[in-house]
């Protein structure tokens, strides 16, 4: 089994009209055994930038701590929040530092950039950025997620419709992956507010 599938994960981010949504599953496993059903994979960097980390959970936690550290220093020095594009470049640089002994994570970064334009991107464990205008996926369920998002996605969705779509895509995909599931976490971010919702799916 690949090291990326050791803990199991599913992450997806989608762009809507002046908003974005980022969703993850809630299972934490040790290969076939489920160890937790409330595991958080999506972290808030600041009100307008969120990062989801799939892959090996220990690396995801350490990477998150390092990123929060860097961002807090940035906030103190520059007296402003990091733009999502800047944050993505930072994550990419930090991952590449470990080129020959990488963090086994695949981040999904979603945020509202200049003029509150939604920005999403994903990268591999070595920091190769992949920008997208519609959706990005990551995790052990990524192949199912690609299929579900490709068929369900529409451009310029309003927040409520975006939430419905991303939830359906996530729940449908994790049902096809034995290593992810046990519900979902969805963050729906607009320029004025952030909604966090928990999904109940097949609890297996």
């Amino acid at each position, binding site marked *: 089994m690949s090291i990326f599938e050791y803990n199991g994960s599913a992450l997806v981010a989608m762009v809507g009209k002046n908003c974005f949504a980022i969703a993850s599953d809630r299972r934490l496993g040790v290969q076939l055994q489920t160890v937790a059903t409330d595991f958080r994979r999506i972290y808030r960097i600041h009100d307008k930038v969120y990062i989801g980390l799939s892959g090996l959970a220990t690396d995801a936690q350490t990477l998150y701590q390092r990123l929060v550290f860097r961002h807090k220093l940035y906030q103190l*020095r*520059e007296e402003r929040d990091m*733009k999502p*594009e*800047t944050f993505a*470049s*930072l994550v990419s*640089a930090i991952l590449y530092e470990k080129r020959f002994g990488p963090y086994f994570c695949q981040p999904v970064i979603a945020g509202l950039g200049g003029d509150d334009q939604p920005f999403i991107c994903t990268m591999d464990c070595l920091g190769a950025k992949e920008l997208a205008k519609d959706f990005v996926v990551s995790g052990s369920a990524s192949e199912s997620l690609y299929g579900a998002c490709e068929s369900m996605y529409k451009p310029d969705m309003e927040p409520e419709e975006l939430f419905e779509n991303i939830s359906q895509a996530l729940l449908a995909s994790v049902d096809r992956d034995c290593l992810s599931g046990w519900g979902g976490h969805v963050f729906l971010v607009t320029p004025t507010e952030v909604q966090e919702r928990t999904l109940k799916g097949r609890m297996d």
Partner: protein
Amino acid sequence: MSDSQYSFSLTTFSPSGKLVQIEHALMAVGSGQTSLGIKAANGVVIATEKKLPSILVDEASIQKIQLMTPNIGVVYSGMGPDSRVLVRKSRKQAQQYYRLYKETIPVTQLVRETATVMQEFTQSGGVRPFGVSLLIAGFDDSGPQLYQVDPSGSYFSWKASAMGKNVSNAKTFLEKRYTEDMELDDAVHTALLTLKEGFEGQISSKNIEIGLIGTNRKFRVLSPAEIADYLAEVE
């Protein structure tokens, strides 16, 4: 054995609480050629005298005003070679910032890094402080900015400032002439008048240098022809 004589910092405190080497460095700045900067509402201009030691020197080959990034320029008063070292280090730091964040470095951050370098040379063994004060002019998302960095490593943001030989006269002149809503062209004229005030000899487009940056965020050094045009407007 004689190595130990060089392993202390030259900037050790005097009993009165001063760092004598920094005071001497400021003297070196104070005897350097005058330079000044003015922040306008829509840009920044920096200018300096360019007095050459002999008429045989090829003045086109000498450039005192230099770029740190495409949108940040710098002029100095004091020891030219010291300023070259600082410009080189600052350029590298600006590029490192870009490599990490893929974003051009904000002016305040670059000024802080440059000032940190200058401060390090006041607290290390076997080195001396830099014998220059820098005027850093830039335009970024926070608008036009003008900073002065001293040999001690302290930096200040100025609306208008001068350094070098004629500093007190120039500052008095600037205090009278400066207005908050000055446009960039007015600022260039004011800069020229200020330079003229303390100029020994005849001011011309060959013995001064002017650099400016406007809302297009591209710092550029004016050619002698452009300087001559501005001088004609000021006469």
